[in-house]
């Protein structure tokens, strides 16, 4: 079936919905989402949106921009960081005005709290910058944007999985999608196409990410020849629930929670004497893994699945119940413990991809020299880059509201001055053939489950918080092998209706491709910067590596290139907290 829209938005999370809302002012807009949009993973974000409103502490967007740059270990494009910090203030007011129920200060203004790496006056001390709605900020953003899309009558194609992008050279003409309910193929022809498909944390065994976070956008584009930027930088959030990976917000530490090792020692004193537990995430995750590898984890067995404690018992019951109620609820449900009484067992959990589809500050997809016309990306799947080598807490929500909004505004302008692109009748053939091949093998091959588990284990142990040449080389080999074996898996379900196996195999293919790019780019970068921590190259090397990586994918071969970093405002300095 063929559909035509001025703009098509792929993904119904925060970035996609904000873009849809803005684009739909002038453009006839459709949102294609493999989930019902209100199930998107933006809804799981807990802590808040960093914006220098200055409602509680004196603040300035320039300080926010600086913190973002320093937090990203100077791999952040600095003009983009300024746009992020300034745009955050406007976007927060815009969301509040549209109904987002922020928590309030006694004066009735938007409440703000501390978050990791956010400081006043270029690193002097922690600042209350994170605008929050209890510990459900992401849920509230998603609800607010979805409500507004309903109000503006944006058209939704729910439970449609995008399998291909239609590119004619560097001009995007739309996408091909697979309707889960019927197994039918749909071609969406559009003047502008925006990918906002979110993260890909399911590459890892322990992750805070939803099952749906399989990197569909970046993988589809990579296979179509678009390079991916800075994929070696993958963030581990320091505090996931042991074993399960469910996120315990940094807001717990923002409210005064403290990390402790098996001896009850507040070990962050040794790693980040000024910001302590609120140091950036890469540093805290490394500190935890170092404690564990030196035998001071809770069990003390030095294994990578050991854990430490996050102690909030001294905060008092009232703070726990009012400021972090959902965290209390998770702990009771999954751990049968009450954080007001007992410390929480935590370990680093795969959380956020700093890298992704390279874009400019209006969401337009660009490689090092060329801009793809009519093709946009925003949110976690994109790389502007405002997160550099390590994202600061709250800046994921900031990214998606600022750049989702900007991309939508750009699309609204763009579609007015452009014609509907031409597409060939065979646009869906590639996707159709791929799925037909899968169906041909119904019942004649292995289950994909074991391959999925193997990939997650390889990524966890060999491309995790710490990595080195040996581990990443091993990972590249194993991932290539798994990619080959993926050709042998088969579906059992012959039906068309909600064939979850086909969806699962397409998702696994996406994850395997992105895992391979992550391992290969990590192997290439022979330094440690932000979340990319190499045992064999422990220092940052600005002379050699102050540059973004670009990775082009052809089959299982990765070709690497580079792109300059915008350091026009602040000169790189050693990163201490």
């Amino acid at each position: 079936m063929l559909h035509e829209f001025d703009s098509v938005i792929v993904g119904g999370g925060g970035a996609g919905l904000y873009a849809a809302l803005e684009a739909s002012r002038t453009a006839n807009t459709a949102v294609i989402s493999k989930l019902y949009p209100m199930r998107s993973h933006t809804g799981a974000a807990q802590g808040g949106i960093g914006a220098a409103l200055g409602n509680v502490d004196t603040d300035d967007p320039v300080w926010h921009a600086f913190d973002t740059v320093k937090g990203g270990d100077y791999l952040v494009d600095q003009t983009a960081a300024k746009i992020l910090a300034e745009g955050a203030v406007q976007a927060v007011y815009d969301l509040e005005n549209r109904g987002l129920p922020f928590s309030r200060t006694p004066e009735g203004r938007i409440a703000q709290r501390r978050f990791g790496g956010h400081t006043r006056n270029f690193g002097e001390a922690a600042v209350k910058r994170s605008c929050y709605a209890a510990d459900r900020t992401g849920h509230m953003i998603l609800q607010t944007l979805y409500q507004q899309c309903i109000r503006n009558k944006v058209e939704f194609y729910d439970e449609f999985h995008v399998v291909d992008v239609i590119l004619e050279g560097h001009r995007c003409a739309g996408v091909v999608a697979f309707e889960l309910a019927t197994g039918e193929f749909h071609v969406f022809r559009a003047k502008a196409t925006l990918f906002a498909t979110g993260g890909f944390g399911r590459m890892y065994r322990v992750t805070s990410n939803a099952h749906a976070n399989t990197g569909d956008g970046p993988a589809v584009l990579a296979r179509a020849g678009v390079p991916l930027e800075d994929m070696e930088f993958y963030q581990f959030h320091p505090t996931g629930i042991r074993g399960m990976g469910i996120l315990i917000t940094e807001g717990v530490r923002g409210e005064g929670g403290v990390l402790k090792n098996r001896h009850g020692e507040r070990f962050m004193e040794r790693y980040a004497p000024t910001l302590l537990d609120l140091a950036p995430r890469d540093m805290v995750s490394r500190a935890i893994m170092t404690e564990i590898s030196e035998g001071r984890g809770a069990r003390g067995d030095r294994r990578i699945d050991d854990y430490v404690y996050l102690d909030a018992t001294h905060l008092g019951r009232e703070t726990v119940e009012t400021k972090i109620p959902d965290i209390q609820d998770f702990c009771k449900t999954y751990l049968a413990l009450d954080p007001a009484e007992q410390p929480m067992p935590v370990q680093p959990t795969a959380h956020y991809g700093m890298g992704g589809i390279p874009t400019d500050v209006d969401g337009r997809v660009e490689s090092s020299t060329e801009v793809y016309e009519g093709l946009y990306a925003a949110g976690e799947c994109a790389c502007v880059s405002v997160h550099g080598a390590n994202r600061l807490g709250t800046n994921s929500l900031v990214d998606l509201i600022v750049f989702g909004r900007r991309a939508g505004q750009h699309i609204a302008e763009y579609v007015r001055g452009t014609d509907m692109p031409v597409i060939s009748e065979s646009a869906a053939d590639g996707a159709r053939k791929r799925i037909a091949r899968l169906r041909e093998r119904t019942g004649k091959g292995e289950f994909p489950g074991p391959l999925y588990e193997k990939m997650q284990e390889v990524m966890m142990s060999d491309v995790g918080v710490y990595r080195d040449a040996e581990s990443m080389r091993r990972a590249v080999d194993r991932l290539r092998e798994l990619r080959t074996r993926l050709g042998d898996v088969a579906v059992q379900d012959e039906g068309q209706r909600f064939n979850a196996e086909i969806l699962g195999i397409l998702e696994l293919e996406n994850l395997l491709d992105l895992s391979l790019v992550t391992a290969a780019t990590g192997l290439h970068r022979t330094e440690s910067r932000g979340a990319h921590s190499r045992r064999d190259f422990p220092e940052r090397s600005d002379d050699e590596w102050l540059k973004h990586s670009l990775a082009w994918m052809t089959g299982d071969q990765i070709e690497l290139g580079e792109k300059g970093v915008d350091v026009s405002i602040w000169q790189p300095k050693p990163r201490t907290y």
Partner: protein
Amino acid sequence: MNVKLEILRQNPDIAEAPHRVTYDVEVDQTDRVLDGLIQVTQNVDGSLGFRKSCAHGICGSDAMRINGKERLACRTLFRDVVETDGDVVSLEPLAHLPVQKDLMVDQEPFFEKFRSVKPYLIPKTQPEAGQEFLQSEEERELFDEATKCINCAACYSACPILDKNPDFIGPAAIVQAVRFTRDSRDQGLEARLDELDDPNGLWPCESKFECTRVCPREIKITKLINLTKRQVKKYREERGEEPNDR
């Protein structure tokens, strides 16, 4: 431990009556029921239909009837059900919505009712440009509970009124309306009076508390419905009007 998942299966594309299929799974006490379902599809029978996403009770994808009670499969640990009900765990799709496949129901009728209550801010005034609306902590607290709703439809399935009156808008839609009628920034009740003060709006509710009992977000839904009924009655009384309850 070994647990048997007894799943009510059906696929409208294949002409067969709904039937129960039992799967043996090897799980830990602390595994989620969702983990058991994933084990079945990844290793035993890939054709089993159910929805999932966040796996920790935030996205609302995996509400179903577990041993007869509406729960989220990702928030229900095996120890929670096995200790009380034994090691055969019965799984059925939500009620009051058409089954699409196995444990998946068509949520569109549910969302249609959600959309009908104007679930978006209809502001009373405009704030100063580049400023937030002012709202006191107490005003914010008034609608806090309703903001927790994840539209999982557990309450919609559990509501006994929908057994006899399928046109009742149901508990979740009322919660979504209340989210705004109690928000000091919104035009409130007046903007949604037609939908709430309607024979299929608030009034069919008979305070059976089933919605409150099953809500995975622990929202006191029945209480919110009753508060709103009183608010509507007061509104009508002040104008010398009768509620539109029949």
